């Protein structure tokens, strides 16, 4: 997979992940072109299209479009299910995910994606394993935050 884009029906980019080195200018150009192309397509059309020398696989969930660019020999259907599995992971983590969750907790969306896909390839397909990794990280985070809190109560930290 070369990149994954999430954008809203209004064409606002919500999340982007690039697995090939490209300049910012190029990224912007690709995004603009693809968002336009995909939004122009009608609901009953097929989820795959040829674009430059890549294949685009996209699917719409509620107001969000998930769009992946894969190479010539890659499998379209399994990519469609990659998108679905990612949505499931988000859903499970946030509890019925909506666009706002991704806007406000974009870092979580990235962490989950990193656990699931790495370097453009599927790393771990088990839902349990991915979520376990994220939960562990969250736990660590809370722990450190608690330590911070206790420290400030005792007054170890210099007052600002």
């Amino acid at each position, binding site marked *: 997979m070369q990149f994954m884009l999430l954008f809203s029906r209004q064409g606002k980019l919500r999340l982007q992940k690039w*697995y090939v080195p490209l300049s910012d200018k190029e990224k912007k150009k690709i995004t603009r072109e693809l968002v336009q192309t995909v939004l122009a397509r*009608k609901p009953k059309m097929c989820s795959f*299209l040829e674009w430059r020398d890549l294949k685009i696989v996209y699917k719409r969930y509620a107001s969000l479009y998930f769009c992946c660019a894969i190479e010539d020999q890659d499998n379209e259907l399994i990519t469609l299910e990659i998108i*679905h599995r990612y949505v499931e992971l988000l859903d499970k983590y946030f509890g019925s995910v909506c666009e706002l969750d991704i806007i406000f907790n974009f870092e979580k969306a990235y962490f989950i994606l990193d656990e699931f896909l790495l370097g453009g*390839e599927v*790393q771990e397909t088990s839902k349990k394993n991915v979520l376990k990794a994220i939960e562990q990280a969250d736990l660590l985070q809370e722990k450190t935050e608690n330590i911070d809190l206790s420290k400030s109560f005792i007054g170890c930290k210099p007052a600002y």
Partner: protein
Amino acid sequence: MEAVNLLSSNRYTEKQIGYLFISVLVNSNSELIRLINNAIKNDLASRNPTFMGLALHCIANVGSREMAEAFAGEIPKILVAGDTMDSVKQSAALCLLRLYRTSPDLVPMGDWTSRVVHLLNDQHLGVVTAATSLITTLAQKNPEEFKTSVSLAVSRLSRIVTSASTDLQDYTYYFVPAPWLSVKLLRLLQCYPPPEDPAVRGRLTECLETILNKAQEPPKSKKVQHSNAKNAVLFEAISLIIHHDSEPSLLVRACGQLGQFLQHRETNLRYLALESMCALAGSEFSHDAVKTHIDTVINALKTERDVSVRQRAVDLLYAMCDRSNAQQIVAEMLSYLETADYSIREEIVLKVAILAEKYAVDYTWYVDTILNLIRIAGDYVSEEVWYRVIQIVINRDDVQGYAAKTVFEALQAPACHENLVKVGGYILGEFGNLIAGDPRSSPLIQFHLLHSKFHLCSVPTRALLLSTYIKFVNLFPEVKTTIQDVLRSDSQLKNADVELQQRAVEYLRLSTVASTDILATVLEEMPPFPERESSILAKLKKKKGPNTVTDLEEAKRERSADVNGGPEPAPASAASTPSPSADLLGLGAAPPAPAGPPPSSGGLLVDVFSDSPSAVAPLAPGSEDNFARFVCKNNGVLFENQLLQIGLKSEFRQNLGRMFIFYGNKTSTQFLNFTPTLICSDDLQMNLSLQTKPVDPTVDGGAQVQQVVNIECVSDFTEAPVLNIQFRYGGTFQNVSVKLPITLNKFFQPTEMASQDFFQRWKQLSNPQQEVQNIFKAKHPMDTEITKAKIIGFGSALLEEVDPNPANFVGAGIIHTRTTQIGCLLRLEPNLQAQMYRLTLRTSKETVSQRLCELLSVFLHLCCVSSFPCCK
């Protein structure tokens, strides 16, 4: 900077945010990378799996060359170490994959590779999933090293497909066991030919059969995810079956399965079925099975609402076409063309043109088809297409009368496309006489019909029509005066366009001065064209190529137009000189210019008494550099001083060439005793045959004379001929010598070949005499695109994705000489750090390797001058 500080923090939150920032915002060329690398190094060594995970994710996300340099050695160790946690192994595998993709040269192969292969046996399916991706990519480039992965992959796959849907617990996705892993394993197997070991092979066939069987079972769930996952595995299995192309029964079954999908209610499945079937049509075992679905596919072309699906249907029709169904398929494509989307029309036009030619049994059908094509989609018919019709009509005399009649009828339409006027003009000019017997298409009627379109056409078409008219003068003496009147009219003789004006003047003069015999010789019917690969096919191939290198594509297209060219050089080449565009008539080197006075004996006397040294002048300064520039171009100014300009136009085909040399007098005074001489050493004379006629010894002020040199490469040669020019200007004697850029590479013809072929031939030419190598410093920034353009300009084909290292350039071609053809392979390895190039040439002949290596090295030294055509 703050983010880098966060990385070194021991607090998880801070570290995590730091990494996130870097992954999202830092692109791979940032200067901060070195600092970041340090922090990552610490985390990798921390043995804390969470920290290691974060660090590996970061490397995989940034994936720059600097990171590859820093960690490509370290990560394989983490990957195969016994005590590494599973999740870290997974990340390490994919991280290494990313680094390998960016900088394959930095990832060292070694002991670890065999241990990576054994990860396919790992108990943890997540680890297997990640490792399979890595192995697939590595195996594509190093098939030998990873050969053992085949049997392991087959047994793993077999265990998955035979497992019950609950066996794999969380790795089962909507009742499909490990679909992602299955797809990846099937992909890995596509890196290899069918397994040789019969046991492994049998087991694989069983697996594939099981997958095909499962497709027939009733679905275990109504959810689309279930069917998608199941079919993803099925399609990948079919890809593998097509890749192996060895089991007829599997191929036919696959075709049957796809046939069912062609009528599925899911658009996605119909799309993919059409796509896969295209590949199946290429196999001899399943071609016939694919053909049985023709009606369904034609129906899809008519009824599908999605243009991308229709596009696939067109592709499939193209792929399944053969002699038996060509007429039906071409007819369907033509009727679809009338309503087709603009975006795909050009491609369909090309496809129709190719199929019509390839499978034409009856050439009248071919002519009809192409004329229809022009009628329906004239705007999308490129030059190549109509050139090709003319080539075919000229080469086949059984169709000429029919073609003349048909174009004549087609031209009757009140509005017809300009391309039709071109074809019509050309064909009537050649074969109008074949239908002139019919009073309904008498010469005068033919002429008036064409002339009625004249004013609506663009300049190149008008130029072509003028040539048709002069051909009419020869074919039908009765219309001569009518045509002369047209040529004589102010709108022609004083036309603002030089080309039209020149043609009108010359043709008018030709028709008045020349006798019938001369006219008949000069305006004779065109000789048949040599058979060559259809240029349309080349164009279609190019169209399919990546669009990212459009400039290069353009350059290639221009080249191919030169090589495969149409029946005439484009008349549009704005020619201010007595240009070879008079060639349109096949006049070539014999322009009907009034002959000058014959060299008088007085002229000779002057020569004898002149005090001029008749020795040859030393080479003009700077000519060496200019010479190098001509290595890759055929036209341009070769030499210029205050008095004289020498321009060149040349074309080469196989072992023959023709060069037009234009001598321009830049002064207002006559040059006298103007004598250009070609000087070849004895050696060169044996290998290169040059023929030319002397030119007029006086060159008027501001005038230009032209000399034609016919060239034949007899055998390979090293030196270049020298052009020496002596003349008298005012009272002084002038003597100029320049090297004439006729170099061995002009007789180069590019050859495309696949990676395997290339290296096989490369190995065959491993004799030390056959190889010549040159290592030199780059004088200019090492720009990939420019280098590519230079190699193409040099004349060899540029082979992409052949060399395992994408930074290297490889090329192949054939040098044509009268006696032999010499295959040449070249490889150029840039070293960016050292700013050096290593150029290796391997050919079957030592002297050829030597000379080509010299030429290309010199040429690579040149900077990209603006006059260099393939860089524009």
